[in-house]
């Protein structure tokens, strides 16, 4: 069996550039959690099903457990830790999740918010069906999704209004 050689990895995470040397069989999920300490990225299944590990990579939501670290070379990544404004202002989605009761145990929340963010970037006025579609790869065992959908609707409305 081959030994893992270390590879160099240049990535931009939450607007910061990193140059890392990591084992070649690490997943992007491991790099974000272990090397960068971004523990807002969660691991729930490691097989791409649950979406807890969702991050935004080059504008698209992906499961970071389904990406080898080396595949992220040169990529721009946003995790939940990158959503707050420069003064710690919360993103409208974060506010809305708090207000509508969309958070219970919170384990799905980071991934859920990031998938919703990608949706709202591409579609500022999503229908309920489109929201369901956008978060269909993010499992939540606590909320039954209803208040999450309400949160996305509320955030969409506020973001359209140009407020915040």
């Amino acid at each position, binding site marked *: 069996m081959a030994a893992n050689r270390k590879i160099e990895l240049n990535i931009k995470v939450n607007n910061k550039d990193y140059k890392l040397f990591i*084992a070649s069989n690490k997943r992007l999920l491991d790099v974000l*959690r272990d090397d960068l300490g*971004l*523990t*807002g*990225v*969660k*691991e*729930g*299944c*490691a*097989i791409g*099903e*649950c979406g*807890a590990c969702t991050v935004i990579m080059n504008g698209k939501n992906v499961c970071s457990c389904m990406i080898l670290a080396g595949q992220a070379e040169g990529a721009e990544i946003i*995790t*939940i*830790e990158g*959503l*707050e404004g420069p003064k710690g202002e*919360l993103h409208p989605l*974060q506010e809305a*999740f*708090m*207000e*509508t*009761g969309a*958070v*219970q*145990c*919170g*384990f*799905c*929340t*980071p991934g859920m*918010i990031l998938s919703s963010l990608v949706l709202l970037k591409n579609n500022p006025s999503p229908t309920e069906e489109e*929201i*369901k*579609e956008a*978060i*269909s*790869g*993010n*499992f*939540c*065992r*606590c*909320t*039954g*999704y*209803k*208040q*999450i*959908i309400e949160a996305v609707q509320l955030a969409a409305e506020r973001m359209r209004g140009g407020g915040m």
Partner: protein
Amino acid sequence: MYKIINKSVKRIDAYEKVTGKAKYGADLNLTHQLYAKTVYSKYPHAKILKIDTREAERLEGVVAVITAEDVPGNNIMFGKFPVLAKDEVKYIGDGVAAVAAESREIVEKAVRLIKVEYQKLAGVFNIKEAIDKNNGKVHSEIEDNLIEHSHHLLRSGDIEKGFKEADVILERTYQTQFVDQAYIEPEAIIVIPDPYKVGVEIHGSIQNPYSIRTNVATVLGLKINQVKVVQSTIGGSFGGKDESVMLMAARSAIIAMKTGRPVKMVLTREESFLESSKRHASKAKYKIGAKRDGTIVAVENNVYTQGGAYNNKAMFVNWRASIHAAGPYAIPNIKTDIYGVYTNTVYGGAYRGFSAPQIVFANESLIDELAEELNISPQEIRIKNCLKPGDELGTGQILLPGKIPAPLEKMINNVCKKTDFESKRKKYIKERESFNPIKKGIGLSCTFRGAGLGGEGIDSASATVTIDIDGSILIQSGLVEMGQGMRTAHAQIVAEVLGVSLDRITFCNTDTSVTLDCGPTVASRGTLAGGNAMLIAARKLLDRLHKRAAIMLDCNIIDLVSENNFIFNRLDKSRKLTFKEVVEECLKGQGLSLSAQGWYTPGPEKLSSETGRGNAYPTYSYGASVIELNVDTQTGKINVEKIVAGYEIGRAINPQIVKGQFYGGILQGLGYALIEEVRNKDGYLETKNYDDFLIPSSFDMPEMEVTIYESDDPVGPFRAKSVGELGIELMAPAVANALYNATGKRIRELPLNLERVLLGKTLRK
């Protein structure tokens, strides 16, 4: 009237969760920590002949390997769980050894180097095999595989006489499957050896810190006070993060003591499904007798729950089942027997509902079958028989008007009216014959649920409330937050009592070295018992503050009011002090303590073990629901379109959180009804991850309309009762009843998956 409670305020733990800052078990790391992993059994039942750990020990980076031989104290914990199996493995999730290494990669390699020689044994894998005496034993000391103390009964009236009076008698058998809680966060534990007390400190995804503390202490041969358990933020539990976490904590603690280094153990999803508890599978035989007019005169039932290889909960689960098995109906003659059996399979434990989903599926399906037999409507038969004020339960307890509410009649009628139940039901029966393969159906179910632990055990709860010099308030409870919103409810109660704004309050995760042992956070008792303890503690503090303020304002203590962060004289509102001023005076000026403990217990409930009769619970909550669905009769696919449900819960401390509990419970209930199933084949687990054990996605969510009924039930804090579990249990029977309405096919086994719905029977690989 209320300032803070009964309002949908933001959760007090939401900020750290939406920002990703909340620390769950797996997010904690310590320098020099070891990574530990368990070596699991290869067979569902086998003798262990030899364990060879040498090769693993030789691997560079491996620091410790432990087997049953290394357990310093008692290897057997509550429920007969071995920390590590010694001579025999009894199910596929038994641990035989644990390894700790410098990295995750190394420990993953090392577990595969442990060589175990087994001698395979025959096993019993389902309820039928367990009852059949010739199939072997799971525990050699137990002849009939019957779990100790798991038989609970209820005897009311004269069952034979009851059936003699009946015009119609039906006998039916219902079966349910094992399911997993499937919380999205897999279990995680980190154990720190504590050189000062020569003990351990345990952090992680722990639902019941106190039982873990006691168990780990016995395993290590330490005193209870040498083990400290601190709960991390938990990513869902629903009853599940208990036995598996206890096993992980015990193994990791042994290694931590042995190596003097922190030990971290995080389960993969596959390990979590393998080792964590499940909702008991069940087989329920029911016999029901009724008069022509629909009056139910007798119910006899015989229920077996499958407990798996070990037993942590069957005795409790079955006791609850015994009280509720005849349903929320006034029935003069009841004979109930509930048994638990051991099998060489994954084991049953606590899962939201705690026997209700199984029992309610059986009983509420049966009521519809009876209605059909008598040719009356499902609504009418329920209205005729459901518990009403003044009725007597099977246990003999009387639903005294003004003391214990009984609003089911109104609730059933409301959900039916909202959905136009009767006319749709009739219409869909007619449409069964239509050409369209997609049929519509509508189904009804109702339930009642004893609040809190009741006669299951002593229900007591502790709380500590501390006010600091700046007027900020710290609350601590021995009951844990798992996502259900209990902390927020507690904070609302304290803020309401002290008349302060919610932003003053923070909470501290449960820490066994600070908060008092008050039993497990189960049975939806977080608000009922825990909230009462908070109320008591807060009132003690209010008393102290008011005593001081009365002197400061020179008025009578009874005229003082605390509201909006002020304490004032209600007779002259200009005579006021800020909350902070009074706090400062108490702490600095007078040297008083502004920390108080609340302890609440409704006291023991008295029950006879011969008849099961007595006051089982202090009070009850109620629910009724109607489900509308369509079913593709050519594929067996059920599509639930809409759910209209009503729940009576006393007072909603936070209506938004309460609704969230119901929405979540409803979707779990639908998963249970339709797609979830932990499949065992001859004791081997077939459903290993989320690709096989399917839980509902956002696309599986129907339209949900939940109505909360409030009542003035006096038991809970500000009249709040239980919320957490009620949502789940109404779903499966309502779906089965709606399926019958749509197709004329009655299916008595869950889940109602494609094959079962199409063929009316189970297909297995």
